[in-house]
């Protein structure tokens, strides 16, 4: 997993609550057995007509958001299915950071496991960001060690993240390798139950 320490990038605002993982990556794309290549299917049914032509009424198709790497969403972002294909699609499309007032639990975990930084801010803060990103070319810089988000006009916010998740992201650790250092304890646990 790639580490994430600091990131600066263009914001893409998606002002909708309860964006579920069926929207992030529709089921017709879950049949692949690889981890890569899901970015082209991100928000597929919102981005494209049945025949595959892009929809003008979905903001991600607006050229002004080309190259965006920070997604700012609404409450309960990533709810629904546990499909990890959702963060795979978000990451493969080019997003490194997702900011929302609240996240669904499984989606939040899935982001961290893939080196995507999920940041929880207040809905006042995310609404202000969304407004700015809709009106201008809005960039943010995110500092994970400091746990801050800043814009170019001097605005800034701090965020909480559990220390374990923070360490995982900063170091880009292979979690299984970490856990296997506790193998003796797992053996002992199993023996005690046998």
């Amino acid at each position: 997993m790639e580490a994430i320490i600091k990131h600066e990038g263009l914001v893409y605002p998606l002002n909708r609550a309860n964006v579920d993982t069926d929207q992030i990556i529709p089921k017709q794309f879950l049949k692949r057995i690889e981890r890569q290549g899901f970015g082209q299917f991100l928000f597929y049914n919102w981005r494209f007509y049945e025949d595959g032509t892009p929809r003008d009424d979905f903001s991600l198709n607006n050229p002004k958001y080309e190259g965006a790497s920070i997604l700012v969403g609404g409450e309960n972002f990533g709810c629904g299915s546990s499909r990890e294909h959702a963060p795979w699609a978000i990451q493969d499309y080019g997003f490194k950071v997702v900011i929302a007032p609240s996240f669904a639990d499984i989606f939040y975990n899935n982001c961290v496991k893939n080196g995507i930084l999920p940041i929880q801010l207040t809905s006042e803060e995310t609404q202000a960001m969304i407004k700015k990103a809709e009106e201008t070319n809005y960039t943010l810089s995110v500092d994970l060690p400091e746990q801050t988000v800043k814009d170019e006009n001097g605005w800034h916010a701090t965020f909480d993240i559990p220390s374990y998740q923070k360490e995982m992201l900063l170091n880009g650790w292979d979690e299984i390798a970490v856990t296997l250092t506790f193998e003796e304890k797992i053996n002992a646990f199993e023996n005690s139950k046998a």
Partner: protein
Amino acid sequence: MAQPKTIIDKIWEQHVVHQEENKPDLLYIDLHLIHEVTSPQAFEGLRMSNRNVRRPENTYATMDHNVPTRERHIIKDAVSKKQMETLKDNCTEFNIPLADIHHPDQGIVHVIGPELGLTQPGKTIVCGDSHTSTHGAFGALAFGIGTSEVEHVLATQSLWQETPKTLQVHVNGELGTGVTSKDLILAIIAKYGVRFGSGYVMEYTGDAIHSLSMEERMTICNMSIEAGARAGLISPDNITVDYLKGKRHVPGGAAFDEAAAEWLNLATDEGAQYDAVVEIDANEVEPQVTWGTNPSQCVPVNGSVPNPADYDNPNDKDEVERALIYMDLEPEQAIQSIPIEHVFIGSCTNSRLSDLRKAADIVKGKQVSGDIQALVVPGSQSVKDAAEKEGLDVIFKTAGFEWRDAGCSMCLAMNDDIVPPGERCASTSNRNFEGRQGNGARTHLVSPEMAAAAAIEGYFVDVRKFTAAVGG
């Protein structure tokens, strides 16, 4: 006297492998269920790192999401076929038991776990599927995980987990005639929203819950995730013990009595404290129908669709407006004026034998209205066999339903069972998200009885009319 504990605390304490400050606990996983869609990348990860499956005997695999529900010997979709073959190869390579598409035990993973007795009280159970919460009906701590966590459990039989906050969902009173556990869970989500369970493990308590059968309890726990909770459970009682007796993977004889005593001891202690509590009165619950694109957008069958003009918060208003456009409904439209084109009776929420029996009671001797496509997809091949022994298949087929083989089917439409764009389905599944049953498809979630009644009438009706129970 020892501090009273919830069942959640008790199961947790019994499974902690390692604990240290400022870190999640390393939690032991007793049972890992696997299916074809969320596992291939996990097995590939193991191979790339030269790792093995630690406990293949605590792992059980089946094929459900992708499988055709008719003509199963021909899988037309090459990508689906590849995914199923990959699961088979992975299970062979790593020595994991598999109920494949032709196996008599095949079925939806959350239907077969309990049926085979793999699901037991006090177990920690995970699966790469958010509806793993279903197994909580047995007093197991069961939750959905992503593919990275699937790989982690395969390699280590454990997961790093923060101690969960606990939420009591207390249900007073009793459900009326014609009102089901599906209506109850929909009403809970309608009342408290799609994220009130976020960050919590929920326990459903109260007489209304403990008078339910195991299959009814599974319907409730199944939809915990639709309230945002990864896990929702019910303390074991005698109904739990009776269900498990004689199941294939459950011990027999004296060992059963010993296990049963331990299971009953897991129940939440009198006076145990939860981090939060919500309540609902079962007597007030009526048959429910969702009108929108998330499960909280739901009203009683005698109600009507809301009017966006009644919402003050612009974001809420916008959400309702968008849902009405997607669903092609008018503000304040009566639920009973909505015509349907498809009926789906199935899914890990409502595809068990008792669900099929109740739906069959409604359709017996009647005919599916007009050219509605009505599907019954049993949750497992053994549910299908049992239903056929009772003649339920004949009742459904005579009424004009299609009778299929087991799988997830039209709940998420990964196979050929798809609702076409713009068409409307009364569905016993769990999610009415945009495009869930097919791109542009419009889903209304209901109980099996309500779906059956809608199939006969062609639009939503109060199922209590069929059971003649309205007003008495």
